[in-house]
């Protein structure tokens, strides 16, 4: 990129208006980035500008505004295709988010292809949104959902995985990065192994896209899903990458306008990909906002952002050693800036409440990963998840506050 922006955390923080406020009289420290990331002004401005100057329905009107909106909208599809390393924009389907993307694959691919006896492998690390849609389609088709175990570090047990693969394996559905623990999974190798037994692969990229560079061609996956709101874009928009040959072969999921070529009571023919999977008026402003978010990120050398996040994680790990009874949940060698933990003699919800009173926004609970919590024998964890706009000083203050919370609880 020609006009690359130098990463500087102080200047970056100026781009996020929400960070500059007080909670319970204390300066807000936002450490719940894995739940949703904050939005830079550029995203808000792009959405505002869209509504102020080009709002109109896409792919429909024979008028200037609609043409402008359609061009802007389709431009972002190109942009997302580049962001994911897809071959072409037609392989990018707009969805509400990762959840909807996985449901689409389950209901379109899964429902049309699965038979009794077929197996869907998911890991024990999965978010409920990469478990429940598979359970639903399994109930509809007679297939079964098989969990791949996770080791004590919070990594997918690769030996167990290899042992579970068989000609019955039809789908491998795993996350690229775990939301509860931050583990970066070796999905490239796992995808290759799944392919070798003839399975298709569905990668949940909700937590990977904010922190690692993704290239679906290099991964060689069949589907890859992510949510806009976790990459500093708006809620209500996400994307599903699907390999063209598969997208063309499988039936549409939802029916309606946009997704048809021709409708008659004698029979209806469907539109081409990606539109075949996009029934109804899409989230146009949100697509525009997502485009602005990706522009914002790509103005930097993204490895600078990731390096800063890793520095935050290292500081957290270092400081956690000074906390008596601190038990990190998820200690994979390869992980993103997520610090998930329990503290002996305290409940995560207590720590969450007391941290909130000191201005720290963290997530507590099961993080929509109940099977994983059961695996670790904890009711839930406290999860501090860092973004590039967080500072080392915030991490330092966090551990001082945490220490105080623990003393109050004991």
């Amino acid at each position, binding site marked *: 990129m020609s006009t690359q922006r130098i990463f500087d955390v102080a200047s970056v923080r100026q781009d996020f208006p929400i960070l500059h406020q007080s909670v319970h009289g204390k300066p807000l420290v936002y450490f719940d980035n894995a739940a949703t990331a904050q939005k830079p002004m550029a995203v808000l401005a792009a959405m505002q500008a869209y509504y102020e100057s080009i709002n109109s329905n896409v792919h429909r009107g024979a008028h200037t505004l609609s043409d402008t909106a359609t061009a802007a909208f389709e431009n972002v599809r190109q942009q997302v295709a580049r962001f994911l390393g897809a071959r072409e924009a037609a392989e990018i389907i707009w969805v509400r988010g990762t959840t909807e993307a996985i449901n689409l694959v389950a209901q379109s691919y899964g429902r049309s292809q699965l038979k009794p006896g077929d197996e869907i492998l998911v890991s024990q690390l999965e978010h409920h949104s990469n478990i429940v849609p598979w359970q639903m389609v399994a109930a509809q088709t007679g297939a079964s959902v098989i969990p791949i175990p996770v080791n004590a570090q919070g990594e997918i047990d690769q030996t167990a995985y290899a042992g579970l693969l068989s000609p019955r394996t039809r789908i491998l559905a795993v996350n690229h990065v775990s939301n509860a623990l931050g583990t970066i999974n070796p999905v490239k190798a796992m995808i290759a192994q799944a392919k070798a037994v003839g399975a298709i692969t569905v990668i949940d990229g909700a937590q990977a896209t904010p922190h690692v560079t993704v290239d679906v061609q290099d991964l060689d996956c069949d589907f890859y899903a992510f949510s806009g709101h976790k990459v500093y874009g708006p809620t209500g928009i996400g994307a599903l990458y699907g390999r063209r040959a598969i997208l063309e072969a499988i039936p549409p999921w939802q029916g309606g306008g946009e997704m048809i070529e021709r409708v008659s009571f004698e029979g209806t023919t469907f539109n081409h990909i990606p539109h075949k999977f996009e029934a109804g008026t899409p989230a146009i402003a949100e697509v525009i906002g997502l485009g602005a978010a990706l522009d914002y990120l790509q103005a930097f050398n993204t490895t600078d952002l990731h390096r800063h996040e890793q520095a935050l994680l290292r500081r957290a790990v270092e400081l956690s050693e000074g906390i008596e009874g601190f038990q990190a949940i998820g200690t994979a060698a390869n992980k993103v800036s997520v610090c998930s933990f329990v503290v002996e003699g305290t409940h995560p*919800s*207590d720590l969450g409440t007391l941290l*909130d*009173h000191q201005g720290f926004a963290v997530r507590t609970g099961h993080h929509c990963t109940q099977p994983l919590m059961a695996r670790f024998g904890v009711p839930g964890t406290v999860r501090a998840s860092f973004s590039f706009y967080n500072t080392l000083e915030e991490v330092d203050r966090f551990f001082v506050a945490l220490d105080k919370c623990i003393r109050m609880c004991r």
Partner: protein
Amino acid sequence: MALPYSEQDLALFRDNPLGSHTTLDDIRENFDFLDDWESRYSYVIDLGKQAPRIPEAHRTDDHLVHGCQSQVWFIYHLDAGKGTLQVLVDSDAVIVRGLAAVVMTAFNNQPLAHIARFDMEALFAELDLVRHLSPTRGNGLRAMVKRIQATAAALLPA
């Protein structure tokens, strides 16, 4: 929910200082005196520690109160002669246990009709505790109170 209580269990109900030794007025006075969030929370947490724990044997699924992020259990003993109720609420989270302590103080050794009609929202508003409750925690607390009040109402003579 007929519970076979041992002598030790019954002693837990009897010896609970909340609602006997410690009264709502005590709590109100202390709250008047404590003016920052930290001392209030510390006080609530300490109150929770005054309550006897529910023995493991009684922490069964049918004594679980649903709708809480932490686990919350509730057992009770009816003093049939006096028509009063003794309740024990326990949780694996100390703040919930503290809030439950306020509830126990309001309900313990009170007539069933009083419990069934008690306005807990008003008490928590008066103590300025509601403001500090997240919607999820607040819902758990409400679920706990609702369960106790429904129990009291069901035990009222027709």
